[in-house]
């Protein structure tokens, strides 16, 4: 008997337009607890927009968005998108974390304050407990001794690891990565990929938009290939990379190799 897994994230028939251009057409996907999903595709394929819609930074124009089985946005009879109340959305925001391409650390806060400010002031948790956890997270990210440093004193790779710690400090059920290594020098991508690999080994639920194909193949349980606002192909990571079915995916993979 197979164990029934719960969908943390579920997106059904999602549509999103910017002005006249529809950038997401009828996207459906779900992510299970403990799963690591990589989203790949050429630039402009809508993968970042999908992540931004899932993290409530952009509003969907159609479809259903659910977290933990609870729909928080769906179209009404007139086809208008209706989002849950601000209060509900605020609770939902605590279920996910997002790591940005360009880190978006708070430059006026030290490393430790970047990590602890939201748990203390948003989640209203006890300061001592938050601090202890943050220290542990920074150690895990290989940032011991950096707690008092300012973001501007760190390398890009260190900043991105702080931002991962900041996201994890809120104990999200699912962590999104939006091209986490794209803003980094090539020699610094390794340290970020190592951190994500560690999280995958711990069965952290993750959705990773990435250009690092070999990394996606190695770390993800499942890869989703998007092109022109559609999910063209998805499947087990190794199958999809080693044995692509669709022409567009084959072309995409070939371009990456050359």
């Amino acid at each position, binding site marked *: 008997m197979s164990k029934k897994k719960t969908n943390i994230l579920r997106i059904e028939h999602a549509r999103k337009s910017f002005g006249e251009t529809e950038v997401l057409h009828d996207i459906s996907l779900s992510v299970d607890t403990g799963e690591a999903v990589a989203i790949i595709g050429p630039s402009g394929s809508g993968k970042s927009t999908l992540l931004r819609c899932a*993290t409530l*930074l952009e509003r969907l124009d159609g479809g259903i968005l659910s977290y933990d089985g609870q729909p928080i946005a769906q179209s009404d009879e007139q086809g208008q998108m209706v989002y849950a109340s601000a209060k509900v959305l*605020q609770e939902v*925001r605590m279920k996910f974390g997002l790591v940005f391409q360009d880190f978006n650390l708070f430059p*006026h806060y030290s490393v430790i304050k970047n990590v602890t400010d*939201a748990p203390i002031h*948003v989640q209203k948790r006890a300061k001592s407990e938050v601090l202890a956890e943050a220290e542990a997270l920074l150690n895990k990210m290989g940032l011991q001794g950096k707690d008092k440093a300012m973001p501007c004193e760190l390398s890009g790779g260190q900043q991105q690891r702080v931002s991962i710690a900041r996201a994890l400090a809120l104990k999200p059920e699912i962590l999104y990565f939006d091209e986490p290594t794209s803003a980094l020098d090539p020699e610094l991508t390794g340290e970020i990929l190592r951190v994500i690999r560690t999280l995958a080994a711990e069965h952290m639920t993750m959705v990773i938009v990435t250009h690092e194909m070999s990394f996606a193949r190695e770390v993800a349980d499942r890869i989703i290939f998007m092109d022109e606002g559609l999910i063209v192909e998805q499947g087990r990571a190794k199958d999809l990379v080693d044995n692509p079915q669709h022409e567009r995916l084959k072309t995409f993979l070939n371009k990456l190799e050359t």
Partner: protein
Amino acid sequence: MTLETIVGMLAFGALTSLMIFFFTLVGSLPLGLLVSFGRMSKIAPIRWLVRFYISIMRGTPLILQLFVVYFGPFLLFGLQMGQDYRITATLIAFILNYAAYFGEIYRSGIESIPRGQHEAAAVLGYTRSQTFIRIIFPQVLKRIIPPMTNEIITLVKDTALAFTLGVAEMFTQARAIVSSQGNLIAFLIAGIFYYAFNALVAFIMERVEKAFAYYHE
């Protein structure tokens, strides 16, 4: 005039100038923030109204605004204002005028903060006011120190315009002394006063700038 009278007049003038300076800042710095919010409001009529207000404040001479505020209550509504109204009118005009300029400086600072800062805060669950108070505004302050310093230095010199309403500030007093004494010494003292005042303002603002130098973006 005895020397004692002269010193007393100048000291009183200096205090009055300082007072105008101080209360103008106390009123216009927070009001300017409200102006910037209004200028960026999602509600179009508020935006238009604030835009209009800023255009008047920036587009007409401060000296004219002083007269309108001073004579307005009587000429428009037939209200008799007391002697004290001179100083009140001065402060009202100064605060309204400077709030418009400060508002635009705040706005430039607020709009210069990258969108990613708002997005990071939103994803971390900060409310809109928490985002502004904890994340955006502290960064805005650092960015607006240079234009603020300029504006505050201008204010020191603009306090002399209160002369036109007969407020006994530094310049008014110096002018009275000069016309009775027949020499320029009082103007020289007034000049030194404004210069030293501004040197102090520049010094303090430099310290503030240094206090914000513990990070850069």
